[in-house]
């Protein structure tokens, strides 16, 4: 059954180009949204009870015959599956209206579904080489989606993304090759056991550095971030939301943390490197965002900054830090997707992404302005919205770990975040209505429905955060907290 998370989107993606010949809009819209809703329901109602007593490894079957495919579902992978499905569902709803003017909707959904299948495969596999492979599945689909508009900017951004991503893949593959040479296997269990018996900490350090550079490039943490401010704004808005909201977290943060915490085991050196890179990312991203005039570019720099918080939380390595990192990962997926979708609505209505030329849009687009205000306040960490609690948890974890300087810097980073989001809100939505926008109208129904859904989730997650932590984050944090014993438990399966 777990295999459905990979095979359903892949199968639908193979059918969509054909179905697109029969129905250009209705069938692709319906099937893509229905599939994402199905996967979301599957992750909540079916997969959640499955891991009640810990992680499971499930073998896939093909017409009754067992296949040599074993999928690992535990608290961490389920948490990621749920996040991917939730954001993908909102994005497919939004795409119903937004992708109208791009044309080739069936192809667009097919690529989106392949990207989702790649991400689902990545979080469900229990093998380093599979991580690399599914990383590539998601990445190849995302290159095409960034360039989907076919304009010169889109193509340039996609090419830059492709080149840097290829470098990241090369680092990751080299590290996997060295580990395979050392341990004779690539499954998490074999590698974890092999590395503990071999006692070769310098080689592991070298491989960790390669993984850090590779996954760091995918996650766009500083200094590996240069591709993101081009790639994410150039993509169509729903894809920007998917890339910033989910892809950088799955192919960067998830893969890195799974390898570092569950396969290699966290070391004091890694803690230092991750926390420092986290704080540097927070500031570089935030200060760069402050100087932007292009709304989507500002959001892209903000992603670098917020990923910094996530990496900082994981880097602390304490149970509270990990919960904070996971919570911020989920929250950032919600509010950054929301903000990118809103930016797309504004761009579609006005034809510009330049903040200078906006102004007073709240009068014409009240729903977009309101949901954007929720997203901005949430990402800036204003209570009682979700971003406040996750940042608070990370800061408390820093104080508990006696990293006082980093705690102060994290608070300062949040202040800068509030600053540039107030600038964004003020320039785009408040003040006097720019006379060019007299005829501008609110975003169409499905686009508004997606943004309202995400805004409500930002509010509700903030209000019921103890429930979210207890039911979704704690099982994931438990898996990461157990370290390499998680991988060792699966040897022989």
């Amino acid at each position, binding site marked *: 059954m777990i295999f459905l998370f990979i095979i359903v989107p892949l199968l639908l993606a193979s059918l969509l180009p054909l179905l697109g010949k029969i129905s250009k809009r209705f069938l692709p819209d319906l099937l893509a949204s229905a599939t994402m809703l199905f996967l979301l329901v599957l992750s909540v109602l079916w997969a959640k009870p499955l891991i009640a007593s810990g992680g499971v490894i499930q073998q896939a079957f093909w017409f009754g015959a067992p296949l040599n495919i074993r999928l690992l579902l535990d608290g961490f992978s389920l948490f990621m599956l749920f996040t991917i499905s939730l954001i993908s569902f909102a994005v497919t709803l939004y795409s119903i209206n937004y992708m109208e003017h791009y044309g080739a909707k069936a192809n667009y959904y097919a690529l989106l579904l392949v990207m989702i299948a790649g991400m689902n495969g990545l979080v469900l596999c229990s093998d380093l080489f599979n991580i690399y*492979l599914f990383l590539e599945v998601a990445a190849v689909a995302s290159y095409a989606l960034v360039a989907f508009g076919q304009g010169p900017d889109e193509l340039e951004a996609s090419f830059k993304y492709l080149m840097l991503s290829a470098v990241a893949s090369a680092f990751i593959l080299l590290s996997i090759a060295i580990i395979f040479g050392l341990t004779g296997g690539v499954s998490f269990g074999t590698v974890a056991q092999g590395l503990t018996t071999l006692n070769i900490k310098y080689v592991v350090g070298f491989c960790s550095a390669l993984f850090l550079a590779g996954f760091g490039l995918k996650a766009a943490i500083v200094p590996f971030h240069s591709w993101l401010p081009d790639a994410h704004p150039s993509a169509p808005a729903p894809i920007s939301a998917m890339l910033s909201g989910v892809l950088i977290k799955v192919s960067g943060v998830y893969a890195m943390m799974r390898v570092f915490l569950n396969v290699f085991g966290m070391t004091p050196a890694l803690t230092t490197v991750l926390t420092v890179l986290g704080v540097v990312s927070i500031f570089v991203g935030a200060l760069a965002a402050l100087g932007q005039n292009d709304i989507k570019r500002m959001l892209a720099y903000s992603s670098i900054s917020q990923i910094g918080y996530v990496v900082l939380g994981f880097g602390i390595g304490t149970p509270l830090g990990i919960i904070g990192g996971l919570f911020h990962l989920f929250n950032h997926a919600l509010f950054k997707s929301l903000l990118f979708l809103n930016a797309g609505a504004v761009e579609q209505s006005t*034809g*510009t992404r330049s903040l200078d030329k906006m102004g007073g849009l709240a009068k014409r687009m009240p729903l977009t302005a309101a949901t954007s205000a929720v997203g901005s306040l949430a990402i800036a960490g204003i209570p009682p919205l979700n971003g406040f609690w996750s940042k608070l948890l990370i800061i408390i974890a820093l104080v508990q770990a006696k990293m006082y300087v980093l705690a102060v810097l994290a608070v300062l980073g949040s202040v800068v975040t509030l600053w540039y989001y107030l600038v964004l809100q003020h320039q785009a939505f408040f003040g006097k209505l720019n006379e060019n926008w007299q005829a501008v109208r609110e975003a169409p129904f499905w686009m508004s429905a997606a943004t309202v859904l995400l805004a409500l989730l930002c509010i509700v997650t903030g209000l019921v955060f103890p429930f979210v932590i207890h039911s979704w984050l704690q099982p994931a944090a438990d898996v990461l907290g157990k370290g390499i014993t998680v991988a060792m438990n699966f040897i022989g399966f």
Partner: protein
Amino acid sequence: MHLFLMIGLVAFSILAVLSRDLLRSAISLAVASVFLALIFFRMNAVYAGVFEVSVVAGLITVLFITAIALTRSEGGVTESKRHLFIFPLFFAALAVIDLLVMKKLLGRIPAMVSSESGTFGQVLWNQRTFDLVGQIGVIFAGVLAVLALFRPGRSHTGDAPLAGGQSDAKGDHHE
């Protein structure tokens, strides 16, 4: 013999990167790939060698040369010459790191005791089945990417695809 092959591989790879002529670059890459295939053969990785020769040296080179032949007439783009200085610098730095780290590293690698043994077909079909799903995914993504990016329709000469207003933010965000 091994050293000779390695030098050939590195030399032709550098030539592929530095060459100003796309055709020469593609051919250098093919030659580098043949050297790599020979190394694979000598190291008993016969299947890797066959794939390297047939796919990289053969098929991909044909595709490259066809594409170059179709686009040759345009040209006239002046490129920065910075890479002529920067590339050798990086290459030298990497070579030094390689000399210092790799020998020690490779010395640590024990004789291969792979849990995944058997014939090529057995490994691929029976032991690495999940990789096949991933490979199908990658090929699929590639095909769909070609379908999506080479679709007819949207013209970008005016860059004004959106309803109302003027599309002006796209051009001004490149430093």
